[in-house]
């Protein structure tokens, strides 16, 4: 009998205890496959819906400006917010039995919620603002031909650079340029690192081989000392809306909101159009398979697509919004510059974040942790 065999004996009892604990905590089964059934939705719709909603959100999105149309139309509905700090965290919360009716995450994670039955299909015929959403955005919310998600916020990722110190950036490979040692700020994120390397070397991001991943790891290990810091979540030192900007940062992996904020403050910055193309991310909302208020949740999301909420996202926070009417009405030169609205081909040259498997994501995040540990 091996040591492991001996150890395994008491484990069934431990597993039972843990199962009870997890059940008590309301953990959702991970063995369910497929999205919520239509009959489940119908049985839910028979009972009167409570006039309250819980939204699993990212900190900051709870501000009423982001859902002002719903607030105006449904002032008596209580809307509560719970928060996640990363896409993985939001998925884990949903898997753990979150009671949220609506959840918000970003491209790359769509498949998981459907596979685990955490999300219900959306009847887009009930959405009065759906026609304002371009088909390319709608497609991002579809899995197996069904609409599970409503796209809402979107934006670019590219290289923001200080034009006083860096004259022109036309490639993502500037992040690896040793002449800028100590003046670079990269996002602390494994999948982002893999994306950048894929752009630079022309790899197929959805089919990175082990050899390519090993080479990517070596590349970022060599790049690590070039960074002044690795930013997480809020890139405090890059964007003037979050506090004093670190003057030593000349080159940053950054979202368009940071660029727009910097422009609005008169900072000497530019936002690269790399020859490999910018990256674009899109925020998606799903309605929980276990929602007690699916119709109210749908109304909430429909109202988020309305003009005022979308316009607020753009003008107050410099986020893109999928309402094309709002995008077409933009006149603010900063927004036009940040979203390259005067460049009709920009989206054709943009790399949208692809769907990746759990195994790929795990390999990429492991790679990044090892880079950080070196």
């Amino acid at each position: 009998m091996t040591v492991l065999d001996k150890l395994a004996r008491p484990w069934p009892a431990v597993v039972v205890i843990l199962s009870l604990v997890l059940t008590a905590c309301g953990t959702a089964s991970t063995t369910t496959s497929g999205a919520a059934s239509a009959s489940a939705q119908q049985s839910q719709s028979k009972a009167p819906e409570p006039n309250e909603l819980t939204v699993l959100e990212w900190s900051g999105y709870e501000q009423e400006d982001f859902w002002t149309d719903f607030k105006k139309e449904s002032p008596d509905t209580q809307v509560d917010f719970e928060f996640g700090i990363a896409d993985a965290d939001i998925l884990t919360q949903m898997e753990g039995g979150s009671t949220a009716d609506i959840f918000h995450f970003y491209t790359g994670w769509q498949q998981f919620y459907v596979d685990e039955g955490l999300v219900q299909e959306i009847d887009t015929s009930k959405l009065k603002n759906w026609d304002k959403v371009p088909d390319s955005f709608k497609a991002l919310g579809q899995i197996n031909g069904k609409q599970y998600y409503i796209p809402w916020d979107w934006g670019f990722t590219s290289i923001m650079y200080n034009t006083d110190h860096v004259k022109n950036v036309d490639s993502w490979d500037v992040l690896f340029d040793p002449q800028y040692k100590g003046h670079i700020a990269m996002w602390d994120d494994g999948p982002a690192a893999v994306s950048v390397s894929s752009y630079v070397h022309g790899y197929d991001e959805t089919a990175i081989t082990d050899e390519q991943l090993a080479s990517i790891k070596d590349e970022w290990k060599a790049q690590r000392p070039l960074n002044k810091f690795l930013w997480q979540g809020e890139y405090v030192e890059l964007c003037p809306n979050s506090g004093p900007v670190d003057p030593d940062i000349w080159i940053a992996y950054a979202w368009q909101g940071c660029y727009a904020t910097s422009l609005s403050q008169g900072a000497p910055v530019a936002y690269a159009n790399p020859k490999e193309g910018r990256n674009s991310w899109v925020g998606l909302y799903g309605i929980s398979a276990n929602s007690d208020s699916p119709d109210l949740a749908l109304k909430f999301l429909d109202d988020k697509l309305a003009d005022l909420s979308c316009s607020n996202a753009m003008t107050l926070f410099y986020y893109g919004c999928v309402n094309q009417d709002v995008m077409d009405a933009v006149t603010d030169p900063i927004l036009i510059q940040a979203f390259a609205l005067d460049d009709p081909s920009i989206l054709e040259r943009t790399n949208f974040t692809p769907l990746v498997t759990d195994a790929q994501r795990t390999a990429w995040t492991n790679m990044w942790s090892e880079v950080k540990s070196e």
Partner: protein
Amino acid sequence: MLGRRGALAYLAVPPYLWLLGLFVLPLLVVVAVSLQPASGRIDFGAGWPSTNQYAHLADTPVYFRQLALSLAMAVGIAVTATLLAYPLAYFLAFRARERAGAFLILLLLPFATSFLLRIMAWKLLLGRDGAINWLLTTTGIATEPSTLLIYSRAAVIITLIYVWIPFAALPIYAALQRIDRSHLEAAADLGAGPWTRFFRVTVPLSLPGVLATLFMVFIPTVGEYVTPVLVGGPEGVMYGQLVQDFFTRAGNWPLGSALAVVMLLTTLALAAAAVKLIDLRRLA
């Protein structure tokens, strides 16, 4: 009818239940998750329990290097914070007299603000245009602002020492308070000077508090992750950051759990070795 001892035993039940529910069971969950065969999201599936996660760690020496580095940083921070806290505690116990209460409140005043705010304040102090660089350049000590103060391992160490000093002073203060002043008087009567009294009487009698402080600072510092994220930069990464990354950002609880278990066992082993080496019972 319950005797006094029986009643006391019942009083101990709630804390034990509390510990069982909120410490032991979660710890078992972490251990159980670390024995999941596959990395990535939680799915015990076939093959549980498995040592796959630990085998992966064993094949990845950088994690152990990072753990060793974090342990070394934690030892350095614990020793320095304790050394700096000792004079503070000594002043409160022996010199402050009736003002001791007021000084104690002043010592604890930083805790009135959030931990995050205090770390952010250090970002401002250590930054390129921060107060320390301003002082260095205006006094002529440096010709240009240093870019090495922030986003470095040194920044993490400096900030954590600052964070821990008030905490560290409390157990030492308590130990110094308990010293019977007649011992010092006896030493003086026998001809011992102030320094001799300090090193031969005060310090030995305060060692239980000093050691408690060392452990109290060392153990949580090993797993610290907020400070390195905010002021560490690429060179100031600590092991706790990796654990946090795996749980919250990578969604890889099995590997994160294995990292956490390794950290816990290593920290406990070091603490146990230190306790055995020092023989706390002799000091008490």
